[in-house]
């Protein structure tokens, strides 16, 4: 007899039983709900705890809930772009479905459980037609089994927190096995420009939709390229690139086997990136062409737009509606998120790994003059290994910087990195305390200048709190 049953006893010592009711599940739900309520009272932003407790009581908690979601789930996974892609997807699909979504980015099984706890009634009923889950790449093979997947989107795979995830080859291997075991009814959406993702096609038995960028050249500065795919993932021969966009993403062909990029069904072309964080693209959905002016900057966001469009396309959404929604999409938490403090504009860009950070640096390098605060923490969620800052091409913005400030638990590792990248940095502008650095950076910039803040993950959470206080914005977890 499980723990759940022992706690519910009648006065005569017999276990309490309801007809057709799963007591273990119900107890897990109640414990989760109480935990969530207590955390809310305390004003805590901890989103995973209720789910964690519920799963301790009923390991099949998410699986049982998933059975209620009639259309199954859409799963979004990859190193970079999960949160933004799922937020865009949510905006697109909300016209068709009532969605349950882990918007706050708590993307382990416990995060899904917490979302169900939050969205369900006390009887465990969820009034939603489809689930939208961003899932951490390392736990994906394990978690997907509980989600009744309708569509799986694989965005990309880059080196990220090697201390936590290990090498990307081992993650890709675990995805291969997962794909072989997926039901045929699961549609798979793949990034055609990432050879490590494209390669997974051959393990897939369901319908495949691909997305990618058709342009041969991108008008962004080049960074020293760090590539996580050295050889053909299929046969280990040399890969030849005719275009390289970001890390190992681009137009490639293997010199030995048949692996090569082909024209994707969903694609972007005529990419234009301009000063003021403006982006325009032509979006092709099979045979439909749409011209878009986007409010989110950077090449990485074009990929997020493409992935979300591929989902919208497979859900048969109307082209005009897709265009309108994409053009209105502003940003996700900490990803090009704007604040205003006493008339000064602040834009926050999360950085978490070299490829993502390089894309942000490329994007901001288009601006005329930069005032920047970079914050490097080394907690578990940031990655305890900070050596990735040496794989990041800070050199490309060194000549553009007006004021620069450095903060976080590893402020001096970063300050030293910037010294070797050619920055003129005063030791007065380096401080471990994030609060101090934000105040200092704001005080040194005038009202016309925009302050860009580039924090790692846990630094973002702290930055968010400080800026919310300063600008009286809503707390992010209430969004």
């Amino acid at each position, binding site marked *: 007899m499980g723990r759940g049953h022992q706690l519910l006893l009648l006065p005569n010592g017999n276990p309490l039983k309801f007809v057709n009711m799963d007591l273990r599940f119900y107890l897990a739900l109640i414990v989760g709900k109480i935990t969530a309520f207590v955390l809310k009272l305390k004003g805590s932003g901890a989103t995973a705890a209720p789910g964690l407790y519920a799963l301790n009581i009923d390991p099949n908690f998410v699986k049982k809930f998933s059975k209620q979601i009639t259309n199954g789930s859409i799963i979004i996974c990859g190193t970079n772009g999960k949160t933004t892609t799922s937020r865009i997807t949510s905006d697109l699909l909300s016209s068709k479905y009532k969605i349950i979504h882990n918007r706050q980015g708590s993307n382990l099984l416990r995060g899904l459980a917490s979302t169900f706890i939050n969205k369900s009634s006390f009887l465990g009923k969820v009034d939603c037609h489809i689930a939208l889950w961003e899932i951490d790449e390392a736990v994906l093979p394990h978690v997907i089994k509980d989600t009744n997947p309708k569509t799986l989107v694989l965005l990309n795979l880059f080196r990220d927190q090697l201390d936590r995830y290990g*090498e990307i080859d081992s993650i890709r291997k675990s995805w291969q096995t997962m794909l072989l075991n997926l039901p045929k009814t699961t549609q798979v959406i793949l990034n055609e420009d990432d050879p490590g993702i494209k390669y997974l096609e051959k393990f897939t038995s369901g319908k495949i939709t691909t997305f990618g960028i058709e342009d041969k050249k991108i008008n962004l500065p080049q960074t020293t390229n760090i590539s996580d795919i050295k050889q053909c993932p299929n046969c*280990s021969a040399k890969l030849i690139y005719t275009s390289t966009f970001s890390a190992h993403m681009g137009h490639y062909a293997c010199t030995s086997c048949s692996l090569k990029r082909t024209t994707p069904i969903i694609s972007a072309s005529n990419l234009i990136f301009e000063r003021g964080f403006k982006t325009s693209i032509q979006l092709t959905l099979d045979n439909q062409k749409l011209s878009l002016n986007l409010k989110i900057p950077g090449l990485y966001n074009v990929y997020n737009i493409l992935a979300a469009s591929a989902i919208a396309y497979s859900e048969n959404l109307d082209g005009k509606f897709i265009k309108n929604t994409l053009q209105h999409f502003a940003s996700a938490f900490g990803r090009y998120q704007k604040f205003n403090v006493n008339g000064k504009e602040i834009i926050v860009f999360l950085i978490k790994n070299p490829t993502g950070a390089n894309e942000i640096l490329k994007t901001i390098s288009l601006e005329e003059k930069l005032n920047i605060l970079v914050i490097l923490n080394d907690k578990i969620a940031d990655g305890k290994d900070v050596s990735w800052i040496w794989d990041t091409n800070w050199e490309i913005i060194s000549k553009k910087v007006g004021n620069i400030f450095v903060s976080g638990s590893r402020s001096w590792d970063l300050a030293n990195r910037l010294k070797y990248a050619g920055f003129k940095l005063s030791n007065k502008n380096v401080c471990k305390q994030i609060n101090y650095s934000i105040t200092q950076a704001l005080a040194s910039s005038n009202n016309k200048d925009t302050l860009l803040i580039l924090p790692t993950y846990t630094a973002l959470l702290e930055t968010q709190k400080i800026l919310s206080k300063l600008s009286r914005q809503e707390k992010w977890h209430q969004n």
Partner: protein
Amino acid sequence: MAPKLSLKICHLYPDLMDTYGDTGNIITLQKRCQWRGIKTNVSSISAGEDIKGDFDFFFFGGGQNKTQLTIAHDLQKKKHSIKTAVENSAVLLSVCGGYQLLQNYFKTKDGEIIKGIGLFDAYTQGSDDRMIQNLLIEISPDLENKIKETYPITQSPSHPVTQLIGFENHSGKTYLGKNLKPLGTVIKGAGNNGQDQTEGAVYKNAFGCYLHGSLLPKNPHFADYLIAKALEHRYGKTNLKPLDDSFEWEAHNQSVKITRSRG
């Protein structure tokens, strides 16, 4: 005016072995030379390419396990050039995967033997333990004395040049042969194998270690020792002009403090 000094650096397999920010070591060598008016010439030598020319310095970084196999095969063709250079007092720094491939062999968990080139009389045994953490070591005493001779500590007397700090991420356990000296003794972390407290290896001017981080940027005393030895290889004993290393030592000390308090 004295003729301008110049160093020839060979970066081994930079396209294949670049996983843990090890390029930071090359950037550091280049910058610390540049700030002293010493020219550097970095050649990238990858698979299928011969080591041509008289290099003063070799760097060999870490990479993913899969690419290490490809390199192990190619490295046999470079064995003679690398060993000859080291015998002739050229400097070599290898980290993690690079360090492992320069040993006698690597035995995988499944018992497969990947042959190395035996520059270091050591071997590595694959394991299920992933040793992932900050790594702080005390430099071996004789090396420490040599570092003290070359590193101009006048401007920062308060910084002890007795330690190295970095970050390790490996599952292979390295065991040194009887006559091979370690780079240092582990204070915090696992080091070579997590058992005998040794970290890294030293053979003549060739060094192997598990210290990423990157290693050289925040261990300027060691960076300068390697530069001094490389200059000695080409020009005979040369004194290094001191630099302002305040940022380097702040980074060193901040990392040491974190490592000592939470590992």
